[in-house]
């Protein structure tokens, strides 16, 4: 039902919010002001694991400028913010399990006064032994962080027969891979303002991906109904998963203080607070065993996956679920055993981050494949060619893929465009004669379910509300949020195309929980499909009514009418404008408001075996990284990346390539330079001076190829790209660096120090045969 030869969809239209942003006019949370505004500061634990003996807020309370101090006793509703498991208090009373645990909140007339009063809250602790890694947490006699012990969840995938698989293999490669934390480092830190309204409603403005999560979390903590809490997303300065569930915590803090004081309360983290308190990409340990036959076909794969969740579950079990289900990557694997352990520690709080468990397992699988290729003497492109999934194949979870499987296309196009085989041979020759500078080129492939996992499918419905006004202007409200990825522009393009009005007529309004039904979180690269389809649903209804009126007004059968770019035509002649038809509808009292809804078909899933339709739709990508390595300094430069992405349909090709370029740079940071130094539960470098994210000078040239194999249930065939843009790059870079140095790097980030130290201690590990 897509418009044939669209004029707005599939064009690189300018973003709807770009002009405001380049002028500096967009208002983010910290730019908002309200009369009587107070500022909230947070008292957090001085120890990663300790019993709380007492909290004395008396000095803080009597500090000039302070309006209120709250501890757990002041919480009217439930002292609970755990988004999936109820294991996480908003304010701890008995036990601190991480240094980011909150003990008390202060509201004062200035942020400075609030922070300095917070320092006066006196807490007595009885420290407990710190559990600072997964091994320690799972060991016998480990201190239990929660009463039920340190294992949050166990997931698995069981398919085929492992013994048969190993017997059929010629080579078995066994290695342990580890990945470190990654910090989102969105340029805008977490921030919220809670405003008590005159009618008793509490409005929460937030930098956020999921206003509906915030609404629910605040209602829960305050003990109020959903109707009395309204969440409005402010312009959000980057999120990447870090503002999925996490903002519910500062939101509940600000809301509590707003109810206690009756005043609007702002809580905006500074950079150190944000880095110390907010969620992080999970460090993982991946014990990977891969069996391959003499032709390079994968016969068996066994993976044990350990995720360091930190002190509370949050979304860790869901992240682990995705890592679990996709540990084998985009390949045909007949015999599969994955065991995934999600573990409590006293470290930093693990949570959602672009890729959601995929980057870690992709790093392991892609490294193993390169090793296997080397052991067999075949090209890394060839081994992938022989194993990548095609239409009709079954995934590791035994899900048959009926359509839109672009894995091979992405490989072939990336390999051809990058001149992979020739460059590889050249690099090898170069390295042989160059002692201090090495070159490498290597591949990373991924597959990603661009929607929620089957286990979360109850959240997957998405709504929209569309008004066409008498002057032809259009308001569109969706449940998905704009976090920089371009969601508002995409839905505006879809709506405009469907309605036949100019793109400039469509205004997407800030996401407001009062306006649309709970549409699930803006995550999982699902928004184009979910909010896009919902917007199309609404637009189609209104279009039908407008064409009906036009048909009556002009006395032309509907089938002969076309509305496009703001003009209504019949038989190729323009007969009226979109505005005129809108006005005519109003005059005839025809309703030009419609709601839209989209929910994907139900997925069948067997939790015990980890088998079934894990995701509704998959995106595939291949990224090829070219690197140079200076063995004198240990520095790696990523020179060029060729990226081929199967996106179904690029609603806005410029924004899609923008996502790819951004994902690649964020991912190369993960691969090479981003390292949070956490010792005994304490983060030592919560700042941009010592946690390095890529600068402009680190950005490689990027050649992006968009492959469009339409997905039948996507708007115009679109799927998603937000996360696939990042997932393969760390694997590709690690493979390239390994190739360049003749050494397999099994940990990321490959910082200069780690690179030099590994080459020092080089032992070539040969695969067992």
């Amino acid at each position, binding site marked *: 039902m897509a418009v044939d030869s669209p004029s707005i969809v599939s064009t690189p239209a300018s973003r709807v919010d770009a002009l405001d942003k380049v002028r500096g006019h967009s208002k983010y949370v910290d730019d908002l002001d309200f009369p009587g505004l107070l500022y909230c500061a947070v008292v957090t634990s001085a120890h990663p694991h300790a019993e709380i003996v007492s909290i004395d807020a008396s000095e803080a309370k009597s500090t000039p400028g302070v309006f209120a101090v709250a501890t757990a006793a002041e919480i009217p509703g439930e002292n609970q913010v755990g988004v999936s498991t109820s294991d996480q208090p908003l304010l701890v009373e008995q036990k601190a399990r991480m240094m980011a645990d909150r003990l008390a909140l202060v509201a004062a007339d200035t942020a400075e006064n609030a922070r300095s009063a917070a320092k006066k809250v006196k807490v007595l602790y009885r420290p407990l032994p710190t559990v600072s890694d997964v091994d320690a947490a799972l060991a016998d006699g480990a201190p239990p962080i929660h009463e039920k012990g340190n294992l949050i969840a166990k997931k698995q995938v069981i398919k085929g027969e492992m013994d048969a698989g190993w017997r059929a293999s010629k080579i078995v490669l066994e290695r342990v891979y580890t990945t470190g934390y990654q910090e989102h480092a969105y340029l805008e830190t977490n921030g919220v303002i809670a405003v008590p309204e005159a009618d008793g409603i509490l409005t929460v403005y937030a930098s956020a991906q999921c206003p509906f999560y915030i609404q629910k979390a605040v209602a829960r903590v305050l003990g109020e109904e959903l109707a009395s809490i309204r969440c409005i997303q402010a312009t959000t300065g980057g999120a990447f998963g870090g503002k999925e569930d996490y903002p519910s915590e500062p939101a509940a803090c600000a809301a509590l203080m707003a109810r206690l004081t009756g005043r609007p309360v702002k809580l905006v983290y500074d950079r150190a607070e944000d880095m110390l308190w907010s969620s992080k990409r999970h460090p993982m340990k991946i014990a990977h065993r891969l069996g391959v036959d003499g032709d390079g076909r994968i016969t068996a794969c066994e993976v044990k996956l350990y995720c360091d969740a930190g002190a509370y579950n949050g979304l860790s079990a869901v992240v682990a679920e995705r890592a679990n289900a996709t540990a084998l990557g985009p390949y045909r694997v007949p015999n599969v055993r994955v065991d995934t352990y999600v573990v409590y520690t006293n470290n930093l709080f693990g949570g959602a981050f672009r890729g959601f468990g995929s980057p870690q397992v992709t790093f392991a699988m892609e490294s193993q494949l390169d090793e296997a290729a080397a052991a067999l003497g075949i090209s890394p492109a060839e081994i992938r060619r022989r194993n990548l999934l095609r239409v009709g194949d079954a995934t590791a979870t035994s899900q048959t893929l009926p359509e839109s499987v672009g894995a091979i296309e992405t490989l072939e196009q990336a390999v051809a465009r990058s001149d992979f085989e020739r460059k590889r041979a050249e690099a090898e020759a170069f390295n042989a004669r160059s002692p201090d500078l090495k070159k490498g080129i290597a591949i990373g492939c991924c597959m990603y379910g661009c929607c929620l996992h089957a286990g979360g499918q109850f959240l997957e419905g998405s709504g929209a509300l569309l008004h066409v006004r008498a002057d032809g202007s259009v308001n569109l409200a969706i449940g998905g949020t704009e976090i920089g990825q371009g969601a508002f522009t995409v839905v505006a393009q879809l709506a405009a195309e469907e309605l036949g009005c100019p793109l400039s007529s469509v205004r997407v309004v800030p996401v407001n929980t009062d306006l649309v039904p709970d549409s699930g979180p803006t995550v999982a690269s699902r928004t184009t499909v979910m909010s896009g389809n919902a917007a199309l649903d609404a637009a189609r209804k209104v279009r039908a009514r407008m064409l009906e009126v036009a048909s009556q007004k002009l006395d032309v059968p509907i089938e002969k009418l076309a509305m496009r770019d703001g003009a209504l035509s019949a038989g190729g002649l323009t007969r009226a404008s979109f505005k005129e038809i809108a006005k005519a509808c109003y005059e005839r009292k025809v309703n030009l408001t419609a709601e839209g809804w989209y929910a994907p078909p139900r997925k069948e899933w067997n939790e015990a075996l980890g088998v079934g339709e894990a995701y509704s739709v998959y995106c595939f990508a291949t990224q090829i990284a070219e690197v140079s390595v200076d063995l*004198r*300094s*240990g*520095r790696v*430069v990523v020179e060029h990346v060729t990226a081929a992405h199967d996106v179904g349909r690029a609603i806005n090709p410029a924004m899609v390539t923008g996502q790819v370029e951004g994902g690649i740079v964020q991912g190369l940071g993960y691969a*090479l*330079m981003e*390292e949070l*130094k956490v010792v005994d539960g304490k983060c*030592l*470098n919560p700042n941009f*001076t*010592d946690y*390095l994210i*890529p*600068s*402009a*000078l*680190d950005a490689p040239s990027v050649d992006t190829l968009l492959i469009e194999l339409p997905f039948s249930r996507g708007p115009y065939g679109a799927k998603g790209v937000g996360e696939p843009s990042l997932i393969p790059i760390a694997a590709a870079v690690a493979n390239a660096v390994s190739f360049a140095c003749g050494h397999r790097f099994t940990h990321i980030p490959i*910082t*200069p*120090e780690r690179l*030099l*130290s590994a080459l020092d201690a080089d032992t070539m590990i040969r695969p067992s045969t």
Partner: protein
Amino acid sequence: MSVEIEVAESLPHALELLAVADPEVRPVAGATDVIVRLNAGRLKARRLVSIADLADLSYVRPEAGLIRFGAGTLLSELMAHPEFAAEYPCAVRAAREFASPQIRNRATVGGNIGNASPAADMVPPLIALDAQVGLRSRRGLRTLALEEIFLGFGKTALAPDELVTEIAVPRRRGWFQAFAKFGSRSANVISVINMAICLRLSDHRIDAARVSYGSVAPKPLHAVRVEQFLTGAILSQKLVRDVAEVVLSEIAPIDDVRGSKRYKQRLAVNATQDALARAMGGARA
């Protein structure tokens, strides 16, 4: 911690404001480091005397045998001064890789010295260039060799009423000059270590050597042992190999958040060897 800001209108005014000789009354120019350390509680001050943008401290004066420049000259201006750039490529290289363009538009050599960080990027090149530093107070003027200013980690020989006002550097055009710094990113990093080497060569003979390292000791290091090893020697593969041990014997880096001792040792050795190899190959920098 709140601090009072007083803006000096001239050098004499600044010296008058500092004459109270209180360690908690400090001069500040670009403030690019002071403001961060103050906010983090790593610095105590009750009043800051701003000497930023003082014309009295911002100048570059070439003379017959040396160039003098005001301690308040912006790094971006030093880099852009043609004669300074021609004379001191290692200092310009250090300035060019210093932080970011925004910071180079506020940072000064005086500030880089006054901070007394062992990682200071402008210091090793200026030590290797035999810089002399003028210090003024209402009590008068004194001159110290740059390396004499640093007493220990974060500690300088400046009295509380003293200001770094001028740096004088002997002419060094024609010397081989190298600067290197290391970090995990292409730009805007605090050096894991840094190094400056200046060599006066006749053909392959090293007539004079000046070597300095940052972040390998509590204060910027003037590597006299390395200098002695190199002075009078002929550049050769063997010299390049053998310098490694001398470097290791003189530097004393520690494990910290930026890197381990071993890593810093390796970088210092590699940087030194690479610079000597380039000099051997006929490069000027």
